[in-house]
């Protein structure tokens, strides 16, 4: 098998700019990469596909020199390639555009670009270079702005410019569209095609099938750390690709028509300006939530999603406006009192926000369920009861955990998400607000979480699902709104939406 591989790579020698053979990376509890081989041809856009946790990120970190492989070797530009660190990788001609963690909010655009330069530079010379690159690819950036105030699309352009200034032969892009609006996505694709035409090879990581089918000519599909398929994505149906990504097919959650009942919660011209630097101000939001109805709120992350959830849950208090729950004003109540009234929520970030990583599942139950499930008496906590509750959440949502005493951080993303959502569902909420319910969750868990949400609505609860995943929202929500720049669009019936009206909503809510 491995002999075969080397032979093959030799025959393709001229075309390949980068080839990996049998790259393996082991962590104490998981095998992140298991004998991964991959051939990147020059001037091509090559997709690296896979679910969250399939090992894509580890693989590109190995290529970029951030992680060292335990086994295997890489050949770059016909020479053995062993990157000590990212600096070395950049010197060789490999650049990377990150999904997270690589811009400095408090610094200016220029400083952010300069910090990524490895060579000494002269300020005006660098400015000229930036101008040239920006013009060539149609990437407009304004150098003196503070990065923290920019939109996701603008931030990504900075990363791309920074990467291009190093004159890369290979450019790695990690989930570049996950933070972009549809318009920004098509702009990005134009840039990427231009780059490929100039001979730059692009390794494009994604889990979105459609964009890969429009953009890439070759795809490597990974699952559980292994390469399961290499193909031309344009020639394979989306269903086939999805199947090899996931490994099995899942039943879509079933949705029964529920008649919307009375208004349970009303947001009346809610505004909020963040005390936190670079927070998104919420502008004059109006929303009515009905019994048995699921409201889907779409939009790219960083447009006020966290703030909106915080305002409904009570973690943030609005600067203006009022919140009415079943006819009673609750505007100034905090999360504890709102929970007692049946308004429950689950924020996006599992580790550290909805759950405490270093605490056991039993202790984590106390975070939101103490009052509503009477887990305490006169301030004294009842751990026996909390343990029982945690056991029933584990059972009811099929959470794979080592019992109620395991630490939250020891659970996989999907299982922890099931647990924190289950913790709210078991309390029988009247109103339930959730942000990114299936983000970073494997397909099986995602579909079971969606089903639980639908079941809850069936029972008469009113639900808000905030998500970046439009497919998810179209699948489960009755009413759709877009949240863009802290502004919420008027609600539209989900079944009346078509791709173009959706795109319009998401660009100017």
């Amino acid at each position, binding site marked *: 098998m491995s002999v075969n591989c080397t032979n093959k790579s030799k025959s393709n020698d001229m075309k390949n700019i980068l080839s990996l053979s049998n790259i393996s990376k082991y962590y*104490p509890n998981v095998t992140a990469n298991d004998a991964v081989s991959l051939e990147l041809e020059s001037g091509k856009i090559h997709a690296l596909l896979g679910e969250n946790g399939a090992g894509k990120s580890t693989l590109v970190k190995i290529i970029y020199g951030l992680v060292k492989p335990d086994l295997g070797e890489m050949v770059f530009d016909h020479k053995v390639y062993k990157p000590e660190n990212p600096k070395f990788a950049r010197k060789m001609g490999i650049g990377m555009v990150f999904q997270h963690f690589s811009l400095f909010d408090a610094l200016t655009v220029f400083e952010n670009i300069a910090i990524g330069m490895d060579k000494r530079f002269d300020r005006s010379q660098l400015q000229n270079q930036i101008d040239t690159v920006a013009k060539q690819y149609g990437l407009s950036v304004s150098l003196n702005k503070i990065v923290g105030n920019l939109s996701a699309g603008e931030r990504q352009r900075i990363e791309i410019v920074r990467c291009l200034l190093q004159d890369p032969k290979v450019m790695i892009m990690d989930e570049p569209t996950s933070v972009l609006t549809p318009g920004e996505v098509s702009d990005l694709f134009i840039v990427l095609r231009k780059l490929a035409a100039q001979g730059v090879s692009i390794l494009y990581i994604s889990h979105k099938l459609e964009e890969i089918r429009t953009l890439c000519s070759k795809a490597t599909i990974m699952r559980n750390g292994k390469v399961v398929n290499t193909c031309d994505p344009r020639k394979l149906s989306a269903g086939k690709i999805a199947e090899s990504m996931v490994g099995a097919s899942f039943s879509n959650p079933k949705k029964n028509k529920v008649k919307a009942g009375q208004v349970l919660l009303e947001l009346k011209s809610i505004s909020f300006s963040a005390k936190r630097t670079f927070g998104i101000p919420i502008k004059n939001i109006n929303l009515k939530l009905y019994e048995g109805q699921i409201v889907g709120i779409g939009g790219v992350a960083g447009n006020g999603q966290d703030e909106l959830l915080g305002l409904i849950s009570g973690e943030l208090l609005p600067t203006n406006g009022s919140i009415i729950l079943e006819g009673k004003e609750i505007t100034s109540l*905090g999360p504890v009192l709102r929970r007692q009234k049946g308004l429950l929520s689950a924020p996006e970030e599992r580790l550290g926000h*909805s759950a*405490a990583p270093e605490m056991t599942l039993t202790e984590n139950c106390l*975070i939101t369920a103490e009052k509503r499930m009477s887990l*305490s008496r006169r*301030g004294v906590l009842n751990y026996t009861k909390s343990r029982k509750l945690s056991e029933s959440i584990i059972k009811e949502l099929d959470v794979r955990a080592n019992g109620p005493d395991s630490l939250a951080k020891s659970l996989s993303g999907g299982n922890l998400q099931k647990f924190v959502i289950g913790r709210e569902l078991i309390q029988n909420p009247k109103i339930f607000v959730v942000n990114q319910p299936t983000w970073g969750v494997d397909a099986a868990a995602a579909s079971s979480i969606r089903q639980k949400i639908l079941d809850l609505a069936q029972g008469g609860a009113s639900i808000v699902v905030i998500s970046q995943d439009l497919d998810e929202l179209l699948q489960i929500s009755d009413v759709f709104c877009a949240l863009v720049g802290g502004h919420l669009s008027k609600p539209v019936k989900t079944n009346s939406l078509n791709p173009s009206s959706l795109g319009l909503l998401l660009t100017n809510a």
Partner: protein
Amino acid sequence: MIKLEPRKNRSSILEISTPIIAVIMTMLFGGILFYLMGKNPFEVIKLIFWDPVMSPTFSEYSRPQLVVKAAPLILIALGLSFGFRANIWNIGAEGQYIMGALLSGGIGLALYPLSAWYVFPLMILGGIIGGATWAMIPALLKIKFNTNEILVSLMLVYVAEQILALASLGFLRNPEGLGFPGSRDLSKYESAANPELIAGTGIHLGVVFSFIAVIFLTYFLSYHRTGFQIKLIGQAPRAASFAGINLRYIVIFCLGLSGGLAGIAGMFELTGPAGVIHIDFNVGYGFTAIIVAFLGRLHPIGIFLAGLLMSLTYVGGELAQFMMNIPAAAIQVFQGMLLFFLLSADLLVNYRISLRTSINKRRYK
């Protein structure tokens, strides 16, 4: 190549054993220090750690001293540990200790020579109020203006020391003291005195009180809502805000608790072992208690043991000073070292240290 790998579950054996590792490392490096000072390290270490408890010649004096010195350390450290868990850093316990002593002493001296049962309880109350009030300054400034409590509480130590000087030279000076600085001896004023309860053991009311506090706070930390909330804030601040915990309340609670306990410690010290309000009344218990709190892993039972150990270094240190002419400052160095080793050893609790190449060879080749 050394590599750190986070542990999925904390190792509880290591959690208990790291303080012991730290103590052993400190003995080792402390021994080197004593050797450099031209002393026999084994003799000094024995004098500090063994003789105060076991030696037939010294233990009669040292054993009671051990308890006497441990009590304030334990009381203060108990209070500090709650704040430290929630990332509320009161490092001005020394000042709160002084202010507790001053207010309780002031009450005692004002009532002198009244003989009544309520003098002592009133003074205890004074100790709590004095310490807690002093701690409320950084607490209120923190919740009102978000002022850094580390710096404010520390600055207030220097202010408290000046007030102590003012008191012992001025308004609380013994009118029958022939103009010498210092107040009346409260340990000789029967209604205010905090004498030894069982002769020869060193156990006074403050010691009893510290034992009770250990038991109560162990329970409180494990089973009370506020204890849980404090742990949650320290481990996952955003989860705490999601839970709806009132941070202001926790700030007030933690600083109030640590201030109050430091104040009580000051009160018991003043009415018992110290006796008089004097410029040199405070001897650094408030700072050493920081080490005690960490050495005890911020847990009441651990703090109880750590307090005894730290007291041992004080008593043994005095012995070493007396017998082998080791300066008192050497003990302070010793205590600082202990804290360093302890903090470093913490890495072992949360991380697995592995030699990368050897593991890979073993497992995959």
